[in-house]
């Protein structure tokens, strides 16, 4: 047992080094803007740039809109699938797993060609959506689907949808009441974990925003990275804290319910 234990410790330490060395290095690097001294100068520079707030604000806006659209799409669908259309569940799940088959860069490529004047009806381009944030938000919603659906689906499985719905119906409740007063409260934790994951993904997203030319935190970081030294690392620390904050919060809220989360880049 002893020797096995030593191996476990060695592996663990290598793992911890791999996890933390880049993070510590980033933090240390971000403090070195002024020669021979540790200061928060890089953070001061980062936080005095008006464009930081603009891009961060936009990302926040995209995240909120994505969450709203994703919830409106996923919750009623998942609920209905559990209550009336069980046999459709594999199909819905299949759709939510598609972002794995079609990577973001491929999806954005296809969308921008199709809805950028490529779809023609009698020679005239129809459904030209480039120039509106619709493609960006649609892309983000697609990215959020696996997490949102899985979270809500797990939540719905834990409650007896049929009994709850039938009880509510026989007491004379309407659909609005059932969804907002019966189903939603029971799914609160599941929904919150989907929300936090979506938030973390959208806030740091680069591919869609950059290739569709919308202001966002990801492309802004990339731009700063090409221009400056030290500030990009300060922004990295901010970005990491954001991810850590949302996912940590999610795990804290959902503690007790074991959920496997997987990322797709």
């Amino acid at each position, binding site marked *: 047992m002893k020797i096995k234990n030593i191996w476990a410790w060695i592996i663990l330490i290598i793992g911890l080094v*791999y996890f933390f060395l880049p993070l510590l290095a980033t933090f240390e690097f971000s403090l070195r803007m002024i020669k021979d001294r540790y200061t928060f100068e890089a953070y001061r520079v980062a936080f005095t740039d008006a464009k930081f707030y603009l891009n961060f604000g936009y990302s926040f806006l995209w995240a909120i809109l994505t969450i709203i659209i994703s919830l409106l799409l996923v919750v009623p669908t998942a609920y209905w699938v559990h209550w009336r259309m069980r046999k459709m569940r594999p199909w819905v799940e299949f759709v939510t797993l598609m972002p794995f088959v079609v990577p973001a860069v491929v999806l954005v490529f296809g969308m921008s060609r199709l809805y950028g004047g490529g779809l023609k009806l009698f020679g005239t381009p129809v459904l030209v959506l480039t120039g509106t944030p619709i493609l960006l938000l649609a892309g983000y919603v697609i990215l959020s689907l696996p997490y949102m659906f899985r979270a809500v689906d797990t939540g719905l499985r834990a409650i007896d949808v049929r009994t709850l719905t039938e009880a509510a119906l026989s007491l004379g409740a309407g659909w609005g009441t059932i969804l907002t007063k019966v189903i939603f409260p029971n799914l609160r934790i599941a929904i919150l974990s989907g929300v936090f994951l979506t938030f973390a993904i959208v806030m*740091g997203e680069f591919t869609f925003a950059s290739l569709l030319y919308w202001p966002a935190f990801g492309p802004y970081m990339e731009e700063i990275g090409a221009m400056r030294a030290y500030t990009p690392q300060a922004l990295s620390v901010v970005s990491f804290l954001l991810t850590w904050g949302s996912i940590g919060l999610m795990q804290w809220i959902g503690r007790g319910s074991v959920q496997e989360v997987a990322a797709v880049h």
Partner: protein
Amino acid sequence: MGLIDNKLTAQPKGDAPTARPLTKKSAALNWLPLAPFFLFALLFLFLPSVSIFVRSFEAPDGGFTFDNIIALFTVRDFINAYKTSLTISVVTALGGAVFGFLLAHAVVLGGLPKGLRTFMTTFSGVASYFAGVALAFSFFATMGIAGVVTRWIESLSGVDIHQQGFTIYTITGLSIVYMYFQFPLMVLIMAPALDGLRREWNEACANLGGTSWHYWRYIAFPILLPSLLGTAILLFGNAFGAYATAYAFSGSFINLVPILIGAQMQGDVLFNPGLGNALALGMIFIMGICMLGYISLQRKAARWLR
């Protein structure tokens, strides 16, 4: 139609007001709530993918052609891009799978304090999301020209590794970066799978005179193999489709398929829109095969581990 509907149609003479036979109209109503979801998927997932497929066979003048697909297998830049992308994905998937498995094994079965396991899985959850631009910057700060590790090595041994020809702007460098989100994913998925190994199996093996080697070789490993392989495929796809990390890390130094597609989007660098579509189609094709492999392995994995 679900169970509940059959029940309703089975007792049309019931006296309760809800127990009416289902009409065609209400069957259609059953589908209606699913319409927004599938319409959305149709517009923003399937039609774009289908359009990539169709346009891969489109010549610059709009006619039908196989040239774009043929170009995938003949143009040196494309072959190289696919080779590089496949290499980095296979290497980081295998590396991530092996190290992730060892780490999961260490925290689940290695007899370490229980708190460490919770910490490690929580942290893996965060690390598997910490990709993209921020991750690339982290590795500049770690192994770049003025990086922390670079300076340590210099102050310890007096050797500036970057002057010795080392640079992180290579496939090896990018692989090290990718590993950062690859192995945590393996830990996340393998930890519950290792939990699924029952103690009795090990005991039964020991009772029959088997050693630890026998247990792993003939019992645990075969049981875990489908989930190991399935997760390795997941890791492969994860690296294969990654754009943000690669772009922020190397600009267009490293010729990867996603980078090439991104460049084609920003300005028609291949001077032929059909070629970009063919490149994208190739990615969808490879990812599709991965997905099929993953699904069938998941089914096998689910047999023992529940």
